[in-house]
């Protein structure tokens, strides 16, 4: 555990004016892009990463956290107003948000989404702050064999939960790992799969792969779907009574158990790698409906429905950071992107982070709490403005995003070669999406690939050709058995689902 002085110094760093400014900027940017259907916080984070180069590590990472948190709030705006979620995890919000907006209460619906989003997010941040340091101490006791077991478990969970079919999940992992093989072999130091490009000695640039696969491929898909139709602008009703455009304390407090349940579901699911906030939002929505005394009101503009969805999907964000900070395993694409930002700044996430960079970690925790407060403030002030963002023309937004991707990747990878890599992986992601192969699984496998290879190499050296030595590592055996059980259970579940279909 870091000393109290380190913790306090970290929280103090978060309060530095430059950090507050960039958190504010990140939150505003996140809310803005979250409100644009098709862009979303993941793409915004991917584009923003290279722009953090010139910043201090804490400033840069706090800025990205702000973008992410702001994006979660912004994503609910088009879901409520247009029935078009800006982010997939806001889809459940649309179930009740849109009917409430159609009843002439769009601001009430977006404000409820804002309040429940911040409540869920703050809950999971508090869990993160209290749980991650003890978990990191446990993680520090793990050697290469245990790390290998953990990697296998992470791959089993991610492949089964993120792909449409288990086989395609494995394909995504294999392709991601193959891409991770590009570069210098860690044990022998010889170049591998570089095809004469010496720029690839250090492997494929993470920013190029991530931005290409997440942002460019999605932009290509959205641009190819444009058909010249102008989307309707939003019209807000004028001279509404206060009760119809705001959420009273009684209404908020009346949803406290719904929000708490959503936050707990989101935090638990967020701490497990690979499940994601969309599943959390729908699970929370379903359980709130089951627990409700008026289940028939759900789907017709219920505040409880909005609260259930938003508190759950926002609480995933903080919980995603638990495996990321303690084990170095990204629980989601956003976490993978934030990990890449850590690495760009020369910081390796994992159990050593707390002992080596304790002040930075607690600075980040402080920044997360501050970002929640700023999110609330910016949301309150900016909701009327953000609702106009959803009417910005898609061609303008998408062309601008493409230019920013070009510049961002050139900054991150040092030139045009990185942009070329980005375009290649964008096309690969486009094809993968068409054939139902998960791009997210690919990226997480690509990120974890080098660590898997190193831990496998070290494990083999430790075992020295004697598999029975594995018995000396009972925790690793437990993890490997868990990985096997998870893979088998998921395969069986897939079989049952496909037979039902």
């Amino acid at each position, binding site marked *: 555990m870091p000393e109290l002085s380190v913790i306090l110094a970290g929280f103090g760093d978060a309060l530095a004016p430059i950090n507050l400014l960039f958190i504010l900027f990140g939150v505003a940017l996140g809310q803005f892009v979250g409100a644009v259907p098709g862009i979303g916080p993941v793409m915004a984070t991917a584009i923003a990463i290279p722009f953090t180069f010139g910043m201090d590590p804490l400033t840069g990472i706090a800025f990205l956290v702000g973008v992410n948190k702001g994006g979660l709030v912004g994503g609910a705006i088009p879901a409520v107003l247009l029935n078009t979620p800006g982010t997939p995890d806001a889809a459940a919000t649309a179930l009740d948000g849109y009917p409430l907006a159609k009843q002439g209460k769009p601001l009430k619906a977006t404000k409820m989404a804002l309040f429940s989003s911040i409540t869920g997010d703050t809950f999971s941040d508090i869990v993160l702050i209290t749980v991650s340091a003890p978990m990191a101490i446990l993680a520090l006791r793990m050697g290469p064999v245990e790390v290998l077991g953990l990697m296998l478990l992470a791959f089993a969970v991610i492949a089964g939960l993120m792909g449409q079919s288990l086989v395609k999940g494995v394909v995504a992992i294999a392709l991601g790992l193959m891409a991770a093989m590009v570069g210098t072999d860690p044990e022998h130091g*010889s170049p591998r799969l570089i095809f004469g490009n010496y720029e690839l000695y250090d492997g494929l640039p993470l920013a190029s792969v991530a931005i290409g696969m997440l942002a460019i491929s999605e932009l*290509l898909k959205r641009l190819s779907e444009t058909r010249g139709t102008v989307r309707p602008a939003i019209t807000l009703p004028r001279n509404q009574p206060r009760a119809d455009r705001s959420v009273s304390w009684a209404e908020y407090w009346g949803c406290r158990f719904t929000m708490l349940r959503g936050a707990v579901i989101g935090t638990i699911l967020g701490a497990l790698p690979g499940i994601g906030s969309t599943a959390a939002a729908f699970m929370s929505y379903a359980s709130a409906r089951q627990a409700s005394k008026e289940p028939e009101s759900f789907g017709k503009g219920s505040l409880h429905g909005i609260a259930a969805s938003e508190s759950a999907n926002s609480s995933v964000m903080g919980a995603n950071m638990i495996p990321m900070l303690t084990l170095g395993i990204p629980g989601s694409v956003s976490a993978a992107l934030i990990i890449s930002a850590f690495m760009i700044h020369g910081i390796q996430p994992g159990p050593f982070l707390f002992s080596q960079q304790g002040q930075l970690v607690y600075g980040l925790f402080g920044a997360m709490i501050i970002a929640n407060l700023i999110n609330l403030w910016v949301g309150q002030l900016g909701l009327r403005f953000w609702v106009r963002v959803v009417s910005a023309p898609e061609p303008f937004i998408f*062309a601008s995003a493409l230019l920013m991707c070009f510049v961002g990747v050139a900054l991150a990878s040092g030139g045009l070669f990185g942009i070329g890599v980005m375009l290649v992986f*964008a096309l690969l992601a486009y094809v993968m999406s*068409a054939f139902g192969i998960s791009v997210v699984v690919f990226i997480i496998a690509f990120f974890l690939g080098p660590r898997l290879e190193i831990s496998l190499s070290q494990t083999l050296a430790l075992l020295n050709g004697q598999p029975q030595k594995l018995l000396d590592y009972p925790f690793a055996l437990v993890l490997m058995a868990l990985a096997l059980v998870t893979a088998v259970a998921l395969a069986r579940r897939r079989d049952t689902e496909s037979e039902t279909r």
Partner: protein
Amino acid sequence: MQAKTSDRLLGLFLILLGVLFFVSIIPWQAQAADYGWLKPRTLPRILAVVLGLCGLALLIRPPGDARPGRFYWARAMLFAGVLVLGLAAMSWLGFVLVAPPMALLLMWLAHERRPLWLLLGAAGMPAAIWFTVAVLLDRPLP
């Protein structure tokens, strides 16, 4: 039916890819080593086998969730072509000269015809990026 055919074609492609990697690319692009526990070719070869086996599984039992017919391939390739051309042009002329016509072309192909938005996208946004990156951050543009 069509989705299952697509999955089978994907399976066939993955088998060929796995074989290509195992037989040709890995021996060509990864050095052989006669020492160490995990040789440079070991993991790539395992992955090539996994890809081939997954391809076989898709061929035998396609899940039927592939939806290539729902994607607008020709238009997507058109936009991708603009990006590739833009990249090639940037290597000669640089971002400042290439970004405005590239943004204009992208917006035009996406059916934007309103002069104000075209002007904002083709002039305003590249200028804002140039100002942020080259002036504020003092970083070179591509």
